[in-house]
Structure formats: structure tokens, C-alpha cells
């Protein structure tokens, strides 16, 4: 019970608060702009020369008025928006009218989640394992060389690194496709598809793994170097404990825990990175959907993507937080 009160409850409250404030921000942003976004949107669509029939315009205006909460008082509008969010109803997409936004999200989200989870997990494991070994043998020359190499990769932004890899492996040296993986509503699994998916996901995943892994590597290397200097490790070492035991039983568990906490904190950034990389490689996920919806001014779709991303990420962080006590004896034995 004490564990529940001291660990679980604050986390749940934080979760609810973050979701609440995030979605409230999505509600407030259009209002802070101080112009009538509805007229603006419609004007923009017509400027871009897409033909909308009058019924479409009317229902768009309706939807937008409701979405931007321009009906009734501020508070009523706010409640309406929450109702819509809970029903997962973001109105129709402008550009694929009258396809509901939620349908589009349902098609694209799994691809993003697949790429995001796979690359984050691989980057985390790889960065930590290599970082730990490099940290333990920090005076060896290969460890220093690796550290130097990572230093030149670490600060490069996702988009730039992605474009460089795309130029290298898809234009200059045509190993991988330039993107353009297209799916219908129903995905039939067969070997050809699996190969196509792997081919199209390899470069995006590689970019994310290299950039993410570089950050984990550096943090883990520092952690292990610090833990190695702790008294209990020195003591175990002088007591003649075997090196293998020392690394896996004494050093790693102590260095791993902060990395799990960090992982939860980095989720939001890693997710943003995934969306950006999807744009570079035209990978059929939410990032590509975002790119298309932004360039066409499809505000409904952008709002839908944002709300869904906030829900996805906060839930993932919460799950990780709930798993954490299983790893950390200090919390478990309270």
C-alpha cells in the first residue's frame, strides 16, 4: 500500500495532467493566433486551386467551427473538444474529403509505432552495451577511437543525417529505394511484402539507431566510468572477484537504472525524431502524413496527429514507469 501511494499514484496523476495539459494546448493554440482560422483555411484551400463542392465547404466550415471551438461559450467549446477526442473523432480530412481523419491515422500509426519502437529499443540496447564495454575499458585505444567517432556523429540533426544517408545509399549508390512504399487498406502478409518493408525501413531505422545509439553510448560510458570508481567496486576488485562477475553483477545493474529513467524522458524527443526521419525517407507513417497535411494546410489532420501522438507517448512513458519498480529494488522493498 505504501508503494502504491508513494510511487504509483504520483505517476498516474502526472500522466493525467500531461495528457490534459497537452490536449488543452492543442485547444488553445489556434485561439492565441488571433485570426479566424476557419476562413483562413478555406481561403488557403481555394488559393491552392483545389475544387471543393459547396456541400464540402459547408460541412468543412461546420467541422472547423466545432473543432476550433467557435460555437457556444469558451467552456462549452472546450467540453465539445474533449468529447471529440474521447470518441476519437477529428472530423473529415480536407484533402481526402470525406475520409475521416481517424481512419487515416489508423492506417499510418502502426507503421510509425513499428519503426519507433524497433529503432528505440535497438538503439538503447546497442548504445548501452557498447557504451558499457567502452566505459569499462576506457583507457584502451579502441575505446578512445570509438568515442571520437561518436563525437562527430552525435550533434548532427535527424533531418540532415537522414538526407545524407539518402544521398549516399539511394542516389549515389542505388542500394535502397527512395521511398514510395504504398499500402492499401488491407495488408496481406507475404514474403514479397516483408522484403519490401525491410528494404524501405532499413535506412530510416539505421539513421535512428545511429543517432540514438550515439547518445546512449556516451551517457553509458560516463556512468560506467563513474561506477567503476565507487568504493564497493574497488573493494570487490581487490577481493579478487572475477572480472565477468564484476561487470555483470556489480557495475551494470547500477549503471542501467539511470538509463531506464532516461529512456522514459527521451521518448518524446525520440518520437519527434522518428516523424522527421519518416519525412526524409517517405516512409508511410505519421511523419509522412504530417508532411502532406502541413504542406496542404490540412489542419484537422495535423491536430489529429498531434493529439494521437501525445496520447501514444504519454501512455508509453507511463508503462515504462510502471515497469521500473520491477527493476529497482530500492522502490520494490520500500
Amino acid at each position, binding site marked *: 500500500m505504501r508503494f502504491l501511494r508513494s510511487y504509483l499514484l504520483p505517476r498516474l496523476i502526472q500522466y493525467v495532467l500531461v495528457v490534459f495539459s497537452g490536449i488543452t*494546448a492543442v485547444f488553445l493554440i489556434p485561439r492565441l493566433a488571433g485570426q479566424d482560422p476557419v476562413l483562413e483555411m478555406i481561403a488557403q484551400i481555394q488559393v491552392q486551386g483545389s475544387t471543393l463542392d459547396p456541400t464540402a465547404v459547408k460541412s468543412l466550415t461546420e467541422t472547423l467551427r466545432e473543432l476550433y471551438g467557435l460555437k457556444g461559450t469558451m467552456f462549452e467549446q472546450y467540453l465539445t473538444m474533449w468529447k471529440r477526442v474521447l470518441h476519437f473523432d477529428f472530423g473529415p480530412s480536407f484533402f481526402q474529403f470525406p475520409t475521416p481523419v481517424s481512419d487515416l491515422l489508423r492506417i499510418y500509426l502502426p507503421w510509425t509505432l513499428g519503426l519507433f519502437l524497433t529503432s528505440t529499443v535497438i538503439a538503447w540496447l546497442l548504445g548501452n552495451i557498447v557504451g558499457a564495454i567502452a566505459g569499462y575499458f576506457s583507457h584502451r585505444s579502441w575505446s578512445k577511437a570509438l568515442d571520437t567517432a561518436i563525437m*562527430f556523429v552525435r550533434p*548532427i*540533426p535527424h*533531418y*540532415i543525417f537522414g538526407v545524407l544517408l539518402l544521398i549516399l545509399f539511394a542516389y549515389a549508390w542505388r542500394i535502397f529505394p527512395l521511398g514510395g512504399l504504398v499500402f492499401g487498406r488491407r495488408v496481406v502478409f507475404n514474403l514479397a511484402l516483408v522484403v519490401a518493408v525491410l528494404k524501405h525501413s532499413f535506412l530510416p531505422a539505421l539513421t535512428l539507431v545511429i543517432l540514438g545509439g550515439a547518445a546512449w553510448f556516451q551517457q553509458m560510458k560516463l556512468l560506467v566510468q563513474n561506477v567503476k570508481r565507487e568504493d564497493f567496486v574497488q573493494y570487490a576488485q581487490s577481493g579478487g572477484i572475477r572480472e565477468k562477475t564484476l561487470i555483470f553483477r556489480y557495475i551494470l545493474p547500477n549503471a542501467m537504472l539511470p538509463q531506464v529513467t532516461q529512456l522514459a524522458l527521451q521518448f518524446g524527443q525520440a518520437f519527434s525524431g522518428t516523424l522527421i526521419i519518416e519525412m526524409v525517407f517517405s516512409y508511410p507513417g505519421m511523419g509522412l502524413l504530417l508532411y502532406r497535411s*502541413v504542406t496542404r494546410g490540412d489542419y484537422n489532420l495535423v491536430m489529429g496527429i*498531434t493529439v494521437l501522438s501525445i496520447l501514444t507517448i504519454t501512455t508509453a512513458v507511463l508503462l515504462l514507469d510502471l515497469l521500473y519498480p520491477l527493476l529497482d529494488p530500492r522502490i520494490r522493498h520500500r
Partner: protein
Amino acid sequence: MVWLKELFGDYRFTVSFVLLSLLLALAVLSFFSPYDPVRWLQVPRDKPPAWPHILGTNSKGQDVFWEATFAIRNSLIIAFIAGIVSRVVAVLVGFIAGYRGGLVDRMLMGIADALLVIPLFLILVMIAMLLREAMTLINTGLLLAFFGWAWDARTIRSQILSLREREFTQTSLLSGNGTLPLVTKEYLPFTIPLILSTLINNIAWAIGMEIVLAILGLVRLEIPTLGTMLKWAIDYQAMLLGHWWWILTPLVLTVFLLVALYLLSVSVSEYLDPRVRIQRIGTR
């Protein structure tokens, strides 16, 4: 002059110093540009690098080299506005939360955590979509500054928390020093390396974000920055048409700039770190 010798003894500092000097020289050159950076069709289009256009010309009829000088300058302006404004917020929040603790601390960190968990990039996109016409250099910088402080406030706070528990804090308070001199005289020297490295990280983040916002067409595209330059090159299919000089220029410049800044932060914060400094004095 000893400190200069020591700094240049670190190859990372030397590399970053040389690179940054070159890039700053480029940025300064933009003031002497023979061309207006916004106008199109000032030179023949799509010419590969050859004198007088040392980096060739682009499909918009602009000289890539002179365009790049403006791009570097403007991207640096955005990044520094974002970096410095958000640093002020991060330092204030970190110091207050760390030193006061209690409810204030929990509220401030709650806000910071919310900002960290939510994919900020999407919120930035939403705001930029509505402000599209107003996304000038200064506004882009301020928008990025508004969201870029959370992570660093957390880092600075944890440093202050550990400093608060040390003996010298008690000593200083017991000898009758107020909070302000304690914070400025005792804590700041300890946190300066941290503030510097967070500043550089933030600048890198801002430059990266500006590029993505430009690719999405959410900043004023006629103002040359590293992002808008890349955006035009991609829109005009520079890769497919083989105009490598056009697309590689912003890419290479961005990589150089960020690697140089990063190396600078790593080497300088190591140099300023009091613990490392004591070791160095010992070996001298």
C-alpha cells in the same frame, strides 16, 4: 596565456576553433555580398562550380556561395536568439527549483516534465502553421526559445540540488552570506560548464528544428537560412538533376557548424570543470 596553450593542446578545441572561425568569416562575408539574397535570376541558372561562381548557381538563378553566407548568418541569428533566451529561463527555473525545493520545485518540474514528454516538434508545427507569415528570424528564434528550456532546467536543477547539500553551502550561510551572493559566487562557477554545454545542445536543437520547419514550409521561405536553402534545393529536385553543389552546400555547412559547436562545448566544459582543473594544476 597559459590557458590558451592548454585549450589549444586539446585537438577538439583546435578543430572547432578553426571550423568556427571559417564559418563566422563566411557569415561576415554576407555583408559584402554583391547580390541581393532574396531576388531571383541574378545569374545564369544551374551552372556547376566555376569562377566567378565558386559554388555554382542554383535553379533560382542565385549564386550558391553568396546565398550560403546569408544562410549561415541567419541560422546563427535564430540559434543564438533561441539559445540565449531559453538559457535565461532554464537558469532561473533550475536555480529556483533546485534551491527552494518543496512545492515550487514540484510545480516547475511538473511543467518541465510535461514539455519533455509531449512531442514538442508537433506543437511547434501547429503554432508555425498559424503564424506562417510572422515566422521571421526573430520570431522563429523566440518560438524555439519558448519551448527549449525544459531539459536544461532539469539538468541545472539537479546540479544545484547536489551543491545545496555540500558543506560549503552551510559554511557560507553560517558565515552570514545571503542567498544571492551564495548563488552567484559559489554556485555559478560550478554550473557555468553545464550552462555552456546546455547552450550548445540547445543551439544544435534550434538549428535542427529550423531546418525541419523550413522543409515543411512553415517559415518565411524567402529569407535564406540553412533550412530554407535545403528546402529550395529539395523542391527543385537538385538531387535527381545532379545539382550536387546546391544540395550539399547547406548539408555540409550544417554538419560543420554543429560538429564544431559540439566539440567546442565538450572541450571548454572539460577545461572549466573545477575537478579536472585541479588535476591539471597538479601535473603542471
